């Protein structure tokens, strides 16, 4: 069995065993009145003591978690107590940050242990980790893997000399960061900080590009070994995002042969981790978009693109230095964060735009005689919601993370208490539902006067049981973002996003940082949709919003170009908390050889028009089957039939079945 087969079949899990066997360590720690740092360190030490070394046939980059359990270090009662005086984000542990790997890898643990700034907890965790390295070294010797033995004799004790040693070093610390309890541990600009090691090997003639590709492919597998043990909303929601390309602080383009090797390795493995992001700009050469599109064609939904022309100035507007902004990467999903000195909490809250509209509809709309009056009411409501959001987070606290701190500029000696940047980010959900609703309210009530505010409100409140004749008009004919007649809705989106950013910029958070406004939704597109009933855009009660920054699920758009045109109208430089526009394509779009060139041009168009972030999906058979069972989820799934394209969900079942059958031999 090859290493790849072990991982993809899950066979490797048979080596796992519990470290604590049901022991309630939180209760033990509590009984001893141990401080949080001590608890974190003891758990880490216990896990390391339990870890076993396993090296698979042919595996080059080793390390796999074998402890199957991961108990909390606080008891439920203690958490209740902590929450009385603190805001606790998600699980309470550090998450969703980009460590500065260079800070550790370029030194090695020998030097870090000798550094007087390294504290006792950090030293204990390093020593515990080194004991696991020793187990692997012994195992490598036992099975005669001299290559692994040699690499581990060098790293992570000392700084790497070769590309392989650097990859192994990364793997060990990435493993350890998760093992300490940080989750959504992102990779940052991997191709940039790893490049010197790659380049040195190539220059010295020690490594060929083929060997580098083999190494990176092997290394990428390591992101999929332990991932089922990681916490997340869904399997796969583990934040192992990696950023390739982009400029440096001087504006130089940073896309190397190594960046390309990473794209190829990702396409070769066809696994969901690491999640590839590409930084691009309007000066990025066309062929790079083609390379990205070749990966899109593989059908994993990445690369996700971000636009340096928008994100860097956007971060600078929020107070990041130019040098730090230029190093940006993405957090678990899409939030733009900086490595090594950004301890931002980019997903701490969310503004529901449809909620804003719903409040205005019920409270102010009847007295709004003009569009201007409606605009004023909407702005006021956004201001009120932003005040609520920003006052809801007080006295934020995270469980300390000694090992993570090694990778950060941590003025308090512990990164969980903050770093240079301590900003909070808020998603902005349901933008199209809100903008479409406002456009409909203006068109039918204020301008055409074919409906009164009372009638519209009654219709919405009764889920269109009353005034049911309004439903087809509002749903199928009213202006919609991304649709042919969407200009009025687009204008509202511009206003909503601008107001959101302006209002958030008025506040400082409890750690002295700023508030960042975004366009993402995460799971909020379902949560927020269930909070309100129907909406004036013809969305019925219980129907979700579009995900992230996307058209409404029932907007009839002429295609991806119209969507791009519509969604690049807002000044996205103000909304760099992130949140991508998502476009879906059937994999049949990629049937011809020049398809990546064409898709690449579409992405370039998005970037040229000032879009901030873009996600593209080539859809597979599983998705088609899901689309057949749940057509409402896939209104824009395009399938190629013959001389024409169609929306999959608009086809009758026999034809859908055929498209699905066709997917089988295309894979």
């Amino acid at each position: 069995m090859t290493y790849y087969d072990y991982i993809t079949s899950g066979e490797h899990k048979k080596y796992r065993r519990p470290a604590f066997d049901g022991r309630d360590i939180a209760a033990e720690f509590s009984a001893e009145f141990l401080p949080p740092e001590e608890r974190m360190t003891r758990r880490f030490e216990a896990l390391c003591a339990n870890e076993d070394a396993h090296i698979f046939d042919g595996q080059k980059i080793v390390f796999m978690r074998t402890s199957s359990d991961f108990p909390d270090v606080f008891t439920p009662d203690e958490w209740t107590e902590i929450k009385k005086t603190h805001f606790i984000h998600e699980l309470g542990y550090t998450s969703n940050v980009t460590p500065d790997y260079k800070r550790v890898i370029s030194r090695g643990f020998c030097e870090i242990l000798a550094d007087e700034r390294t504290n006792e907890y950090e030293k204990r965790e390093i020593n515990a980790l080194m004991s696991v390295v020793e187990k692997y070294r012994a195992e490598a010797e036992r099975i005669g893997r001299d290559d692994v033995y040699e690499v581990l004799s060098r790293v992570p004790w000392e700084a790497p000399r070769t590309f392989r040693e650097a990859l192994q070093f990364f793997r060990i610390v990435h493993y350890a960061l998760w093992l300490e309890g940080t989750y959504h541990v992102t990779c940052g600009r991997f191709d940039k900080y790893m490049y010197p090691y790659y380049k040195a090997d190539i220059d010295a003639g020690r490594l060929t590009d083929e060997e580098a590709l083999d190494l990176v492919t092997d290394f990428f597998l390591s992101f999929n070994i332990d991932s089922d043990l990681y916490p997340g909303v869904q399997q796969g929601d583990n934040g192992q995002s990696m950023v390739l390309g982009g400029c440096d602080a001087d504006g130089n383009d940073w896309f190397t042969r190594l960046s390309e090797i990473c794209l190829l390795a990702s396409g070769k493995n066809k696994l969901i981790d690491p999640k590839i992001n590409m930084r691009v700009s309007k000066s990025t050469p066309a062929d790079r978009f083609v390379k990205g599109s070749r990966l899109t064609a593989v059908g994993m939904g990445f690369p996700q693109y971000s636009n340096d022309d928008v994100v860097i100035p956007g971060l600078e507007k929020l107070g990041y230095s130019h040098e730090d902004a230029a190093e940006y990467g993405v957090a678990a999903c899409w939030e733009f964060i900086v490595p090594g000195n950004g301890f931002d909490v980019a997903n701490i809250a969310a503004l529901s735009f449809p909620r804003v509209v719903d409040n205005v509809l019920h409270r102010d709309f009847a007295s709004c005689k003009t569009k201007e009056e409606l605009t004023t009411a909407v702005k006021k409501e956004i201001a009120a919601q932003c005040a609520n959001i920003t006052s809801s987070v007080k006295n934020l606290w995270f469980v300390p993370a000694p090992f993570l701190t090694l990778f950060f500029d941590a003025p308090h000696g512990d990164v969980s208490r903050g770093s240079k940047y301590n900003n909070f980010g808020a998603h902005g959900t349901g933008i199209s539902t809100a903008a479409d609703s406002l456009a409909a309210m203006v068109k039918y009530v204020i301008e055409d006067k074919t409906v009164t505010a009372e009638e519209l409100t009654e219709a919405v409140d009764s889920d269109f049981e009353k005034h049911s004749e309004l439903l087809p008009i509002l749903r199928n004919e009213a202006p919609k973002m991304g649709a042919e007649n969407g200009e009025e809705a687009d204008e509202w989106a511009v206003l909503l996003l601008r107001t959101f950013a302006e209002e958030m910029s008025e506040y400082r958070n409890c750690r002295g940082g700023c508030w960042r406004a975004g366009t993402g939704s995460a799971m909020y597109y379902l949560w927020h949709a269930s909070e309100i009933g129907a909406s004036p855009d013809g969305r019925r009660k219980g129907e979700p919003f579009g995900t992230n920054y996307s058209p409404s699920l029932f907007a009839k758009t002429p295609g991806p170009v119209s969507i791009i045109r519509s969604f690049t109208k807002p000044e996205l430089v103000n909304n760099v908390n992130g949140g991508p526009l998502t476009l879906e394509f059937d994999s049949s779009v990629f049937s011809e050889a020049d398809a990546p060139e064409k898709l690449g041009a579409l992405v370039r168009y998005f970037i040229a028009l000032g879009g901030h972030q873009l996600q593209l999906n080539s859809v597979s058979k599983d998705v088609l089957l899901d689309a057949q069972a749940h057509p409402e989820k896939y209104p824009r799934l395009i399938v190629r039939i013959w001389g024409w394209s169609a929306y999959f969900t608009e086809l009758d079942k026999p034809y859908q079945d055929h498209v699905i059958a066709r997917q089988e031999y295309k894979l």
Partner: protein
Amino acid sequence: MDGKFDIKEFADRDVEGKVFDINKFADRDTEGIIFDIKEFAVHDGEGVRTTVFLKGCPLSCTWCHNPEGQSPYSEIMEKAGCVKCGRCRAGCSHPECQPFGRCLHACPKGLLRVAGQKTSSHALAKKLCRDSVLYEMSGGGVTLSGGEPLMQGGFCVSLLHKLGEYGINRAIETSGFASDEVFRAVLDECDYVFCDLKIADSAVHRKYTGVPNEQILRNIDTLRKSGKKYRIRVPLIPGITDTDENLAGIRALTSEDEVQYLPYNKLAGAKYAQLGREFKLEK
């Protein structure tokens, strides 16, 4: 000339229905009827293209996959899923609904739509021009398809000419069935032509498409001599066009051309039911 519709009836009329010489349309804003505009059409020529589907076709190919492109008049299409609520038949006063006897704005499930929108060539060209940056980035442009675009020759000439003025690359997908004058006039305004040659034998051609192929072959000859970039396309219809005999015949007629064979797809009949018609080839 054979065919369902007299091509002279449509090819050279302007926005007011006045008949003009086909060669005088270049600057004349002309009304046409289209049934779809597809963005990011990746199978219709070089680069990223937007394809405009013109309504009306003098042919009636048994395998036609765009049946709503056949009639040169607007028609109503209804997706499956009607729950017979009767709202669309309750009567309404919208002028746009009157020709169909059903209200287009009433279906709670949004199942009704009209195939066929009248549009001015200049207004359409301006709209298509919005994405000229994308066309330029990708080496793409606009493709006219159908239906048979040449059936609205005057509209084609006017639209293509205007697109040319905007610097947009222009392609056309045609059956080649049009008068010499219309074919030449449209050809003059194109940068790339996809011309079908479905069946080599004229009688067989007539049996399956409703028209003979002599005029098509003559136009293909005009195309060859024009110096324009072109490609001959052959749809491979099982038992009809993909026979050894037909393919040999086509090879003999196209020995000097670039030929592309388009595999047939069973999904071709998807839209017949929506028009309340039967897809004969399915039998």
